[in-house]
């Protein structure tokens, strides 16, 4: 896979795809959707689709693709290479969502949670296949969240296609297994070749699996905390593990969209009953100054 675009700028998202096999433009196809790297606190999440004509489904099954989690890295790479050899009837496309995109989405003014991000990415990939002219007749999806609501949503988006959303679809349908292999191979490659945006000092690449419960990953996070900036962008700031470490080891940050009103009045209810002296008759500055955030400086 050619990741040069991602290596150039890994702060957003990046799409990669195979050429569309000619046969997929003519014959009815099955399409599988799966993801890799949803859980880790480090690195990107990858969404992949894989498709082939119904008439070639047996050929895909003959490759003995299986759920990528049950395969070793070398087996996954071997299977992906086989799929590349079968490019006359197997096509794929994938979206790499950078950890920075995940953090900024989940920590936005309007929260955009990981499930919605996942659903929208999957929907966009299916639409992408359709836009390329792939004759999709059936879609199989490994579920994220409740399968029923997800299926209903996708079915509404693609009324002409039979949509099946299931838990463990990656081990039930070979076309989803194939998608899971594409996603996992891409995620591994993206992590391995990750270019840190920051110029880190004393950097150690031994961050373990990237999963929050891996002691190695946790130790790596603790080691790479920067008191002001927190972590490098390789880390998903929106993960509870990352937040907990920042809370302890980094400086506090107060954002302008945080409601400070509560803090201001809390604990000062007594001010209604007690004469606290000058505090109770403050002279409010003119609106001109308030609107411009100007205050008289009493100290620097």
């Amino acid at each position: 896979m050619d990741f040069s675009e991602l290596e150039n700028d890994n702060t957003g998202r990046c799409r990669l795809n195979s050429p569309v096999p000619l046969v997929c433009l003519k014959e009815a196809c099955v399409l599988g959707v799966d993801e890799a790297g949803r859980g880790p606190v480090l690195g990107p999440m990858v969404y992949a689709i894989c498709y082939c004509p119904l008439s070639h489904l047996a050929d895909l099954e003959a490759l003995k693709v299986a759920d990528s989690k049950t395969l070793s890295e070398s087996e996954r790479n071997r299977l992906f290479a086989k799929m590349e050899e079968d490019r006359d009837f197997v096509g794929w496309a994938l979206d790499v969502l950078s950890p920075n995109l995940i953090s900024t989405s989940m920590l936005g003014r309007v929260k955009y949670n990981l499930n919605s991000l996942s659903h929208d990415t999957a929907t966009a990939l299916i639409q992408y296949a359709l836009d390329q002219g792939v004759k999709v007749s059936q879609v199989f999806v490994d579920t994220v969240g409740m399968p029923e609501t997800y299926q209903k949503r996708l079915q509404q988006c693609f009324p002409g296609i039979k949509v099946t959303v299931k838990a463990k679809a990656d081990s039930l349908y070979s076309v989803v297994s194939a998608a899971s292999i594409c996603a996992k191979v891409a995620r591994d490659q993206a992590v391995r070749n990750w270019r840190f945006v920051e110029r880190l000092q004393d950097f150690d690449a031994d961050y373990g699996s990237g999963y929050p419960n891996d002691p190695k990953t946790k130790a790596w996070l603790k080691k790479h905390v920067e008191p002001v900036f927190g972590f490098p962008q390789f880390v998903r700031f929106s993960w509870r593990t990352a937040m907990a470490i920042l809370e302890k080891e980094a400086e506090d940050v107060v954002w302008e969209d945080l409601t400070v009103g509560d803090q201001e009045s809390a604990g000062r209810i007594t001010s209604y009953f007690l004469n606290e002296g000058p505090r109770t008759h403050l002279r409010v500055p003119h609106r001109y100054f308030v609107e411009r955030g100007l205050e008289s400086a009493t100290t620097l």
Partner: protein
Amino acid sequence: MESRDETMMEKHRVHLRPITLRDAAPATLHLLPCEVLASRPAPVGRFFTPAIRQGPDGLEVSFRGRSLRGEEVAVPPGLVGYVMVTEEKLIGKQDFLGDSENNYQEEEREPVAAPEPLERDFDRFIGATATFSRFTLWGLETIPGPDAKVRGALTWPSLAAVIHAQVPED
């Protein structure tokens, strides 16, 4: 507001060290839409600057996992930006002594009449550590735009000059 200042905190007389204005080196500044509850050096050049991208609608970066959009703001003509720091050390010995032992340049001394004697805990010195003629203003997820508070604040000096100017008799 004066009344509040007097009652709520110690009153200080602040003196500027004019020589620092001349020596201040230019600095790159970023104004973020958040407050970091600490005052300490930060590796801006290693963590922040390399992450800035030119997006379709202005500069893009993220801080602590939150998306920022930024734009350059120029200091209005006729004004200069300085980063000012209060001297940690309270009044030094030399500040009490007469001219003979004053190591500072001529303009260091108050030009107007005879300066009042300095008092410990009352007089403070500030000096410039850096100068700037522009800075990058960052907004949370959106470009701060023309209505940004700080843009309004920058109009105050010219308004202040006008309203404090001498009005002709007739």
